[in-house]
């Protein structure tokens, strides 16, 4: 891949590899996400989905390859906080919210704005408009749980809260790792709807196992296998691809 594609991508990976103690988690992975695009990434366990997210968000440094954001910013040079500040939000596989804070506070902490300890100590962060919190809570359908401790939420609600926190960050790119794991069908449908809503003004990358869910999303699909791209295209196209069937759907 070369620069023309690079310039008009929000996220761009080229020839990225990383190894843990000899095991190649990511192998010459290349991927490009256009602005405003929604992309589903599927693949068997150990295909390197989560590791890819670690690399994009600066948690893991790649051994080789380049990772660019918005065309020109080299993510391999930055750490999590800086990358988050750039506008990349991430939702973990296992829902991680601040259990000993109320739902509202979870959102409050996530809302865009100054992040330095001093702004947090003296004012700035303490004067956050409740309206914005309300807005987000209503998008993620948690308004009535505003004052509850995050710890007391149901699994699905936690997933949503975390998505809500992503929204609060108001990122250009959302990385969503298995958002519907352990959700009821109703919740799953809800989530799909929610993500599509979000995708209107953000680029979204969704990692998921649940094929039905991916189908609901109705977006371009990338299949990872052993750390590199196996196939790319519409859900029907990839489901037709026999190598995909062989390594993944087949089982």
């Amino acid at each position: 891949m070369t620069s023309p594609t690079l310039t008009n991508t929000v996220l761009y990976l080229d020839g990225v590899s990383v190894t843990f103690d000899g095991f190649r988690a990511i192998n010459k992975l290349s991927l490009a996400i256009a602005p405003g695009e929604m992309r589903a990434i599927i693949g068997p366990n150990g295909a390197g989905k989560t590791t890819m997210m670690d690399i994009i968000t600066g948690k893991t440094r790649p051994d080789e390859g380049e990772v660019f954001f918005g065309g020109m910013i080299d993510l391999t040079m930055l750490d999590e906080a800086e990358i988050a500040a750039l506008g990349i939000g991430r939702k973990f596989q296992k829902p991680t919210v601040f259990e000993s804070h109320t739902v509202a506070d979870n959102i409050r902490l996530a809302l865009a704005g100054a992040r330095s300890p001093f702004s947090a100590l003296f004012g700035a962060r303490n004067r956050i408009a409740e309206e914005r919190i309300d807005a987000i809570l209503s998008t993620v359908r948690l308004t009535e749980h505003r004052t509850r401790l995050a710890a007391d939420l149901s699994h699905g609600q936690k997933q949503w809260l975390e998505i809500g926190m992503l929204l609060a960050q108001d990122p250009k790119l959302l990385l969503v790792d298995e958002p519907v794991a352990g959700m009821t069908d109703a919740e799953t449908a809800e989530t799909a709807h929610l993500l599509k809503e979000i995708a209107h003004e953000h680029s979204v990358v969704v990692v998921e196992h649940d094929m039905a869910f991916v189908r609901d999303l109705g977006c371009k699909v990338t299949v990872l296998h052993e750390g590199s791209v196996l196939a790319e295209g519409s859900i029907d196209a990839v489901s037709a691809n026999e190598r995909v069937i062989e390594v993944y759907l087949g089982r």
Partner: protein
Amino acid sequence: MSRLLCLILALACGLFAAPVCAAPADTGDALLLIASGRFPDIEKGVALLARSGDARTQAIIEALRDGRLAVAADKRVVIEGANGSWSEAATGEALAEAPPSPKAVRLNNRIRRAVEAALGALTLMAPDAAARRQAAEAVFRSRDATALATLDEAIAREEVAGIRRLMGEARAAILLGDAGASDLQKIEAVDILATRADQDALALLRAAAAQGSPTVREAAEGAITAVERRLAVLSMLQNVWYGLSLGSVLLLAAIGLAITFGVMGIINMAHGEMVMIGAYTTFVIQELARTHAPGLFDWTLPLAIPMAFLVAALVGVAIERGIIRHLYGRPLETLLATWGVSLILQQTVRSLFGPTNREVGAPSYMAGAFDLGGLTITYGRLWIIVFSFAVFSALIVALKATSFGLKIRAVTQNRRMAASMGIRTSWVDTMAFALGSGIAGVAGVALSQIDNVSPNLGQSYIVDSFMVVVFGGVGNLWGTLVSALTLGIANKFLEPFAGAVLGKILLLVFLILFIQKRPRGLFALRGRAVEA
């Protein structure tokens, strides 16, 4: 034998000594001096006795050495034999009844030296090789010129090469200091000592270089530089050895912790007390041996090892069942509880055995040292190194090769999965903790050989142990091994320059900075597993 000796001595001490040999009366004078009880006179007495060449000399001096030479109320000098029999010192004839209130002749260092020198000259031709070796060394130390002739004679008869060499060195030592000796002899002596090339030789050579004819001085200086070069290299090696032995001690102290803390994640502040318990077990076993079976004393350590393991392991089981079991998943709480436990254990031991140090003796094979190409290797340290490596490998095998080890690893890696596979996790926890404690106990057996056996024993090792485990990387036994040895050797190379205190400080600072570079120690696992 004695006549011969007398003859030789006569030759040795020349004209003025000749009459001495003739008259055993001198023995009488010597004994009078010895009976005086005044150290300087006793010393004179010994010297006189040594020169007298009386057949009784050796017997008397040996008796003196062993504290069997006594002075009776009636000023007679007597020798105490086996099972309380007594004999006249001068003549050796046995006494019918015990002499009135015999008082053993007291020794001090000067007299001990005189005795050594005298016996050295006397036993140069003893039938027993060991005795001859000792004699040669004694003469080398005493440099007693009067022994020269005997020495020549002995060298001529000596078969054992090693001993002959020693005698040669002794001879050289005497000649070098002897004003009478010719330059040729002296230069020859210099060469012999140059081959010996140890501190003592160096000292002699320095002395020779200080006084003596230019030629001798020149030869000596040449030899000195050579010896010094050799010693410099040796001291490097010596440092490595010291480092190894210190490292092995650290390893022993830390290895149990590597299980309870490293593998199980329990911040076990009572670890040091487990070591202490092991040491006290050793003490108890030795006490039993002393009182009941003195013959078995050398076996106390081998015996103590399993016992210490057992005792410490049992205490471990009690702690785990009683306390730690309720704290899994709350590692920091374990710190507090085990801290409490350590206080209790210390006080318990203090009330049981008293607060003072207890004596744990060294069996014959742990005592003394031998020379390895100029390196002094002390047996105690050697055994401890061997021992610590043995324990380490045993542990590795236990964890890697046995089903028990497999279970431990399974449980520590994924408790729930292991449980669902039918492993009784709580049982495994207990066993693992017992294992860690037991090994700590075993370490105590070794440490009892080099350190205080007191209730504070554990406290002095706990901090170091944690350092070692963390530096090596928690949960990685090989890391613990490497870090223990690294810290040990580094410490020993720093000590000569920085001194013991500063050396240790530097090491700690290094450790802190090192953790910055590798926040999970030397051998950290990489990848996602760590985060989980």
